[in-house]
């Protein structure tokens, strides 16, 4: 552990993250894949945007790995003969944007409320918990239907609904962890030093809870993508001609026996994105824990067991 470089500590650690992640090929692959997805989301419409709604009747239900219509048709085409590759690239923007915003909102809102509910011993905590119970006891799809039907389908409303239905998960997890961490000795020690509530919550308790939330968030990402697609399927989510990976899976579902690739490629994209997020979040959790960090500092050196450590 040679992190004792004294002065520019933050700079060193920033490079250190990159160096360490490059040593773990799995985490590295996850990072590269996510960078590609983000790249697609940002530059996709500009690169292949004109291909996504151009029907090509010669390419209807074209099987993948056939280059007769050019390289953009390498993943095949859908029932209207539109390039699946182009639609995947462009669909990344809506998919990632909606899911990321929804997960971010629910983590932030759920985490904050959970911190308050776990830390305060008064009525506020009880009220927050009962609120969460109400949201949880309401079928989330029904809630989404009512909200989207009354407010009208739009991307903002979609994100809002998806976030609200996921909040109780983060809220309950956070609260349970806070209840445990709050009783730890170092929290008492901080109180004895005179630390105020804000300091205890954000310096001492929140950093212990955050890794759990990030891990759940990474897993939840796929759930949110699919929930969004089911809403879109019902016509309350994203409106055509806009589309997402989830919506692509939903439309491809009817052709699974004749043209499996229509649903398969977007499904694979969702799977790989979620998997990468999972790998990365688990890597980060290890990295962020000082007691675990040596594992990634030493791991995968592929030289068997390194020299004796004290």
């Amino acid at each position, binding site marked *: *552990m040679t*992190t*004792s470089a*004294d002065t520019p*500590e933050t700079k060193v650690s920033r490079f250190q993250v990159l160096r360490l992640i490059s040593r773990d090929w799995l985490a590295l692959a996850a990072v590269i894949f996510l960078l590609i997805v983000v790249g697609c989301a940002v530059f996709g419409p500009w690169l292949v945007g004109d291909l996504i709604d151009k029907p090509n009747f010669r390419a209807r239900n074209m099987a993948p790995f056939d280059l007769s219509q050019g390289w953009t048709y390498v993943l095949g085409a859908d029932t209207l003969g539109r390039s699946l590759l182009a639609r995947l690239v462009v669909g990344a923007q809506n998919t990632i944007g909606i899911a990321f915003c929804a997960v971010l909102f629910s983590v932030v809102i759920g985490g904050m409320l959970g911190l308050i509910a776990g830390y305060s011993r008064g009525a506020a905590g009880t009220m927050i918990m009962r609120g969460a119970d109400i949201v949880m006891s309401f079928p989330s799809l029904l809630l989404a239907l009512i909200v989207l039907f009354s407010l009208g389908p739009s991307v903002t409303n979609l994100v809002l609904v998806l976030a609200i239905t996921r909040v109780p998960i983060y809220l309950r997890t956070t609260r349970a962890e806070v209840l445990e961490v709050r009783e*730890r*000795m*170092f929290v*008492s*020690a*901080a*109180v*004895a*030093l*005179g*630390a*105020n509530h804000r*300091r205890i919550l954000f*310096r*001492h308790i929140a*950093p*212990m809870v955050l890794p759990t939330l990030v891990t759940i968030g990474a897993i939840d990402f796929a759930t949110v993508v699919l929930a969004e697609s089911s809403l879109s399927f019902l016509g309350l989510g994203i409106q055509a001609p806009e589309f997402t990976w989830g919506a692509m899976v939903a439309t491809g579902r009817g052709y699974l026996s004749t043209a499996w690739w229509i649903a398969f490629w977007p499904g694979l994209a969702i799977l790989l994105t979620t998997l990468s997020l999972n790998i990365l979040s688990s890597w980060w959790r290890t990295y*962020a*824990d*000082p*007691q675990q960090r*040596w*594992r990634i500092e*030493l*791991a995968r050196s592929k030289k068997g*067991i*390194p*020299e*004796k*450590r004290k």
Partner: protein
Amino acid sequence: MTGTHLLEVKDLTVDFLSLGGSFRATNGVSFHVDAGETLVILGESGSGKSVSASAIMGLIDTPPGDICAGSVAYRGRDLSSLSEGERRDLNGRKIAMIFQDPLSHLNPVYTIGWQMEEVFSVHGVASGGVARQRAIDILRRVGIPEPEKRIDQYPHQFSGGQRQRIMIGMAIALRPEILIADEPTTALDVSVQAQILELLKKLQAEDGLAIIMITHDLEVAANMADRVIVMKSGRIVEEGEARAVFENPAHTYTRTLINALPHGDHEAPPKRGRPAGKPILEVRNIDKFYTLSSGFFAKPARLHAVKKLSFDVAAGETIGIVGESGSGKSTVARVLLGLNEASGGEALFHGRDILKMDRKELLAFRRKVQMVFQDPYSSMNPRMTVLDIVSEPWRIHKDILEKPRWRDRVTELLGLVGLNPEHAARYPHQFSGGQRQRIAIARALACDPELVVCDEAVSALDVSVQVQVIGLLAELRDRLGLAYIFITHDLPIVRHFADRIIVMKSGEIVEHATTEEIFRSPQHAYTRQLINATPKPKWQTAADAA
């Protein structure tokens, strides 16, 4: 004793493998034990003493453990040649083990009767009513009152000492020949410890048990041992007859250990001029109740944890508060620091009542009074570096020190408590227990307190480290003029440190006098019991009896 020993361990070398490399836990350890004899393996944490015992029981998981060399032979038979079934049969029937923490080794959801009967039925010795009757007999033998009634109770309904008795009962249920006791009394109060040691001796005399006892406590070792081996960093540094080792230690490490003992009946405590002056803290009639949740219709029960407690502390003075678990001594500390609220009474710090302070006053008060907690493993945030931990008081009390000078002051404080200042960027888990407690002391000193409350601050540490930490506290007291409230269950440890001692029992002060008086002429029976509870060496008791 000719030929083979009952149990013989030869050249045992155990490695633990991890991603970070291998760690040699024991290195060429050899010892033997015969019937009716007690062998004590003495060593501090990390010396490999528990690993040696686990190897006998075959409890080392491989991997990560790796028994590189050596053999364990029972009556001349190499245990590594046995099949798993034979091994299981031997464990429990011939060789039994008791552990440090009886609560975590008894299953909380079964009655103790069920668990004891299981011992018999697993080994196919007895079952049903016969097993039950035998379990009752054993409970009686290990000194559980009314065994017929209590056999149907659950582990949490017994006290710590009783649970350890039950564990011992389960271990001797099948009349083993060898009993391995891994720190059997460490978690217990001194007076209970004495009873458990007596019980072990009684069972040994009756059954001719061979006992291998693992401990870090020299007094327990001297009290039990016929022979002693002293371990350090996985090696045996000294072995021999108990009396010879204790009175004439050959190895320097053994000598340090024995000199580290805070006792010694002859030497008088060093005289320290009693600091005169106005008391900085006056505690008047502090009361503390805990309301226990109870049945639906029953009246809520109340636990009177602290009853009408009064004392005061002068500047630069050290008060020792001594008591066993449940005596309310930690509650006092928490109340004085405002971590718990008192149910009544007042505590005046420089004439202002701590219990009625508003937030601003409390903040100012907490600069002047600091606390060092018992367990250095949990009293520091594991995600903060030492630099962050020690400088946290300055983040909270913004006017103490401006930020650019923090690093220098942390360096200074770490030097003051005897740590390498270059380690400021490390995290707490990279330090040993004693070093962590030094970090905690550095944090406590960061805002120049007048009073430091130490709640069992050295109890979790090894004996030689305890002495170092107390030495450090004493030195800081003399240099910085600190006052201490030193809370402990170990009376002898405060002998050379405290000016006055308060002995507490069930929330009340039973005796309050200067340290010298307490040790010279203890007035209360309980104080005498605490002083005498320190186990006496076996050879002395044998001589007294003759």
